[in-house]
């Protein structure tokens, strides 16, 4: 029975999202507890799956009972359960926050639609993490694209519609690229399953070199658009800053990462290693990631809106994940992967804290944040922890991932990237620390009349995430142990 759990959790999420629009009138109040309990169940399942995979190793699941080249296969290995744990835990915590915050950003009538889209987004991301089949990957990619646009555009705001339209167009173009790549791979290998494609590709290189090259570049462009790697990040600042705060937290923390994890799987499990000697894909990703880290930090420095600044900072941080992939060393990859979890924790916490500030004080501009630490000490304390973690101060989890990335770069004899990491930390310090310092020690400005109290239900998730940032800064052991097995490919 326990081997069925991965597919059951996807089916449960889909079933819950189908049931959600049926909750009408009296049952509408049940929507939130229902959503939370489903998310909690999926989180529990993901923890159990980690235990299962640790104890009995990776296993595959044949949907419909058909063996791989004919049917759809889910492959549950260490990386998959790690991603599933990250996705479900952050989604659960963010939803607890969103339960209160959403009511002041979107209308009550569309709340159940929001829960539906949210559950579908989580289901599709888990599907992307678990699947072992190229076409299933594409199908879940579509679901995640549309639902991610949905949770942005649901806000009654002209700016939001515009941003989500831009996101939709670019993201669908990315999906189209991925579909074309899948078609090409199918044409030259005759399989869709990752393992079988990987088996066939080495022979196909000699016969169809341009097809493989084109498929690879289409995958890279498609997934880079979706995960906002540097020159294709154009949609991200608008979309992530105008969305409701819980959506921003999920989008910035999880949605752009899952595509990075997907391309990691494709690069290391599907495409043969000989290909990378001929085509320097990893070098290309590495250059782009360096540009992303620098450009994201520099753009973030000149922003005035706090959520916009956080969005630009996400562009820099996704660069670290891609840097880990591009360096192609065990340790660097470990750093990049652990950064997925660490950045998900701290960035969603920062977005939620920013949402709390907007909720309570109605401030979006960074300069107006002066002295707000006195009024909202817990929120700004959490924000400060997140900022320290972004900079990479030891004792926070941001340090752990940067430390491993830097060590991995040194292992490979490429100290240039250590310099980039240090420089980026410095830039992060330049734009994050003044906010914290001004908030606590700046000249106090008169509080505006619309100041609202912070509800405990919104504050607690932020504090939980802040505690997570500290906890995994001191005890990264379990996560690192899990990932060390995940990168033995």
């Amino acid at each position, binding site marked *: 029975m326990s081997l*069925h759990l991965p597919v059951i959790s996807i089916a449960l999420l889909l079933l819950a999202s189908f049931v959600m629009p049926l909750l009408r009138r009296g049952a509408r109040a049940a929507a939130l507890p229902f959503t939370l309990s489903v998310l909690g169940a999926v989180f529990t399942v993901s923890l159990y799956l980690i235990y299962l995979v640790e104890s009995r190793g990776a296993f595959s699941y044949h949907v*419909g009972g058909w063996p791989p080249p004919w049917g759809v296969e889910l492959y549950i290995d260490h990386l998959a359960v790690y991603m599933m744990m990250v996705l479900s835990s952050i989604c659960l915590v963010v939803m607890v926050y969103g339960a209160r915050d959403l009511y002041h950003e979107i209308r009550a009538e569309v709340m159940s639609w929001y829960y539906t889209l949210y559950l579908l987004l989580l289901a599709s991301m888990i599907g992307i993490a678990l699947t072992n089949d190229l076409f299933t990957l594409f199908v879940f990619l579509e679901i995640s694209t549309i639902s991610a646009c949905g949770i942005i555009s649901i806000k009654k705001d002209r700016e939001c519609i515009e941003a989500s339209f831009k996101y939709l167009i670019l993201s669908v173009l990315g999906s189209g690229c991925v579909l074309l790549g899948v078609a090409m791979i199918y044409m030259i290998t005759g399989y869709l399953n990752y393992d079988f494609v990987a088996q066939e590709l080495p022979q196909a290189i000699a016969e169809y070199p341009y097809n493989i090259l084109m498929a690879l570049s289409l995958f890279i462009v498609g997934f880079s658009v979706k995960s906002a790697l540097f020159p294709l990040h154009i949609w991200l600042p608008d979309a992530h800053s105008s969305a409701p705060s819980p959506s921003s937290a999920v989008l910035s923390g999880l949605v752009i990462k899952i595509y990075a994890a997907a391309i990691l799987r494709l690069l290391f499990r599907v495409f043969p290693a000989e290909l990378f000697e001929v085509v320097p894909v990893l070098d290309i990703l590495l250059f782009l990631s360096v540009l992303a880290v620098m450009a994201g930090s520099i753009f973030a420095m000149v922003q005035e809106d706090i959520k916009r600044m956080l969005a630009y900072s996400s562009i820099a941080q996704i660069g670290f994940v891609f840097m880990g992939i591009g360096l192609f060393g065990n340790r660097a990859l470990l750093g990049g992967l652990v950064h997925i979890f660490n950045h998900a924790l701290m960035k969603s916490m920062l977005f939620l804290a920013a949402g709390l500030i907007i909720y309570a004080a109605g401030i979006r501009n960074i300069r107006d944040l002066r002295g707000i630490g006195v009024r909202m000490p817990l929120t700004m304390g959490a924000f400060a922890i997140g900022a320290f973690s972004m900079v990479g101060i030891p004792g926070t989890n941001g340090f752990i991932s940067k430390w491993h990335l830097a060590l991995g770069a040194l292992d490979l004899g490429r100290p240039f990237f250590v310099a980039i990491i240090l420089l980026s930390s410095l830039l992060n310090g330049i734009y994050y620390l003044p906010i914290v310092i001004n908030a606590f020690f700046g000249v106090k400005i008169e509080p505006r009349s619309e100041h609202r109290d912070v509800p405990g239900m919104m504050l607690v998730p932020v504090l939980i995430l802040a505690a997570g940032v500290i906890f995994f800064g001191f005890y990264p052991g379990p996560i690192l142990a899990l990932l060390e097995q995940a990168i033995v490919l």
Partner: protein
Amino acid sequence: MKDIVIRTVCRVIVPFVQVYGLYVIFHGHLSPGGGFAGGAILGSSMVLFALSFHLEAGAQKLGHETSSYLESGGGIWYILIGLLGLALGSNFLTNRAAGLGFGLPGQLFSGGMIFLLSLGIGVKVASTMFTLFYNLSEEEGSGGDHQ
């Protein structure tokens, strides 16, 4: 579109289109077609009806409430059939290996799960088409008269 010619032609044509849509759904496992194609035909017949008469006339035949029940119902039906395979001691969405297969190949009632899944997909697609069209074109009281 208050044209008597269009209304009369549509009144004659719509039942045939619907029967054809149902045929494509039910014969999905025997001849070309299936849930998606048949559902699209069924949905476009309803759109045609609503266009040629009045939006309210279409809404009377298939209300908002019913349409959304059908929509969720199609998906729930699909997943429940998948879970049925699980309950019978096999994998998710298993058909014959779980003992769902019945009938001889070539007969209408054969293929076990395939027939049921096509039905669910057809209902889902048809109601999706109609709901999308209805929600896009309602409002402003223009009814079916625009264009």
